[in-house]
């Protein structure tokens, strides 16, 4: 009897900074009805990094958690990819900092990826391909962002900070990646020009032709090519720029609120951009049972969606005891008012 060789997640790790600001508090500054804004977005508060935290530091923290769960020799990690739209340097990779900090250097490849909020899942696909083709035993894909919204802009209510690392391999899996495929078109719904501090977006253009078209198509395509339907999955995870978009997506595809709810961390931490759907997946892996199937579709403006089907493996309950869960990071928080928030995010020039 032969057993099929499976590729998947051998360890996952997250990191969310401890500071929060309430949507209500941001609305107060701009003379907006806070409760209404909060309700329409489905977001109550968002995470804010400490003054000595950035995309590199939170990527390292998430990566250390993933490596700890996998309990492997980090010298065997032969690829480190960091997806972000807020890399600390314009020129000089974040991935080299992460690779050095976890002890993967020097016999490894490393690169920074950019594709708005789906750069992290693009890294997962690259690691999946490299491990599947037996080029390497382990590859590490990270989605991390300390995103910024222009003061007063709609994005300011949700642009937040968080990181998730997925260590991909072919043994001792926490969850297998059963299938992955993508949808991509050139759609300018959100952008930031070189040298600009804050991103710009196409307003209403961001919904139907951008997020929904790509995420729905990717999710439908992957179910069609694998002959699956919503009821075959225990959970679904979609990119969470707010709670409204993934809720509408789940409904349109025929998933229940219950299948989506465990991944909806956007309510408590905001939109962590490249980490968003990956932290959603981690929150599901934190509670899932062996043989549960998970459908995931990320979204990156510009625009594209990467879809994945995962199956949770035996032994996950023991493995996930070694590292903090998403809920642990959600629970440990410290609120900032708008003036302290402005100081944290460098909006006060000294």
């Amino acid at each position, binding site marked *: 009897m032969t057993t099929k060789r499976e590729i998947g997640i051998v360890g996952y790790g997250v990191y969310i900074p*401890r500071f929060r600001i309430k949507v209500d508090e941001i609305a107060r500054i701009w003379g907006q009805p806070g409760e209404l804004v909060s309700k329409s977005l489905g977001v109550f508060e968002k995470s804010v990094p*400490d*003054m*000595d*935290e*950035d995309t*590199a*530091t939170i990527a*390292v*923290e998430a990566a*250390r958690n993933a490596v700890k769960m996998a309990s492997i020799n980090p010298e065997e990690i032969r690829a480190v990819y960091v997806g972000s739209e807020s890399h*600390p*340097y314009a020129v000089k990779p974040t991935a080299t*900092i992460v690779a*050095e*900090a976890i*002890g993967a250097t020097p016999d490894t490849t490393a690169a920074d990826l950019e594709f708005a909020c789906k750069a992290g899942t693009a890294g997962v696909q690259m690691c999946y391909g490299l491990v599947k083709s037996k080029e390497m035993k382990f590859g590490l894909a990270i989605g991390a962002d300390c995103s910024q919204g222009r003061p007063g802009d709609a994005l300011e209510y949700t642009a937040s900070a968080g990181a998730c690392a997925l260590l991909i391999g072919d043994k001792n899996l926490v969850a297998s990646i059963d299938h992955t495929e993508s949808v991509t078109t050139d759609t300018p719904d959100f952008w930031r020009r070189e040298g600009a501090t804050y991103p710009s977006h196409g307003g209403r253009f961001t919904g139907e032709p951008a997020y929904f078209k790509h995420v729905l198509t990717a999710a439908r395509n992957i179910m069609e090519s694998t002959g699956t339907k919503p009821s075959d999955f225990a959970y679904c995870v979609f990119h969470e720029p707010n709670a409204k978009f993934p809720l509408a997506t789940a409904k349109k595809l025929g998933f229940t609120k219950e299948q989506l709810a465990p991944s909806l961390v956007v309510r408590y931490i905001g939109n962590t951009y490249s980490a968003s759907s990956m932290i959603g997946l981690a929150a599901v892996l934190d509670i899932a049972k062996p043989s549960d199937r998970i459908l995931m579709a990320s979204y990156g403006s510009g625009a594209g969606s990467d879809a994945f089907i995962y199956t949770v493996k035996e032994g996950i309950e023991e493995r996930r005891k070694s590292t*903090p869960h998403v809920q*642990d*990071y959600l*629970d*440990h928080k*410290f609120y900032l008012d708008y003036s302290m928030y402005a*100081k944290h995010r460098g909006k006060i020039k*000294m």
Partner: protein
Amino acid sequence: MSVPRVWRRRKVLYRLEGAKCPKCGKIYFPARERCLECNTTPLEEYLFSGYGKIVTFTWVYTPPKGFKSRIPYCLAIIELEEGPRLTAQVVAVEQNDVSIGMPVEFAFRKIASEGKEGVITYGFKFRPKGYPNHAK
């Protein structure tokens, strides 16, 4: 710190790497070339667990140049569980959270960044052990 100096120290800063004497087992942080106990050279690389406790601490209100936006911050002498002591910042704490003997763990943070155009130095700081579940 100069760029070459930070670069040479990156394993120390990023991972708490020190040295261990292969003959008598004495552990050093930071690493050194020769054992002070038995004169053995070279010493082996040694990775610290990242766990330790606070020996003493102070809250800094008058910082060196470039750290003004971060005050007040907690500076502590930490005794690593393997023995050596070092000075480092304690993060993820408010003023009433810190005490002598408090168990701490490695945290990866920005140490310094030179203006808008210079290099960013990353490295170890410490936070309460078991973070973010330390208060539960």
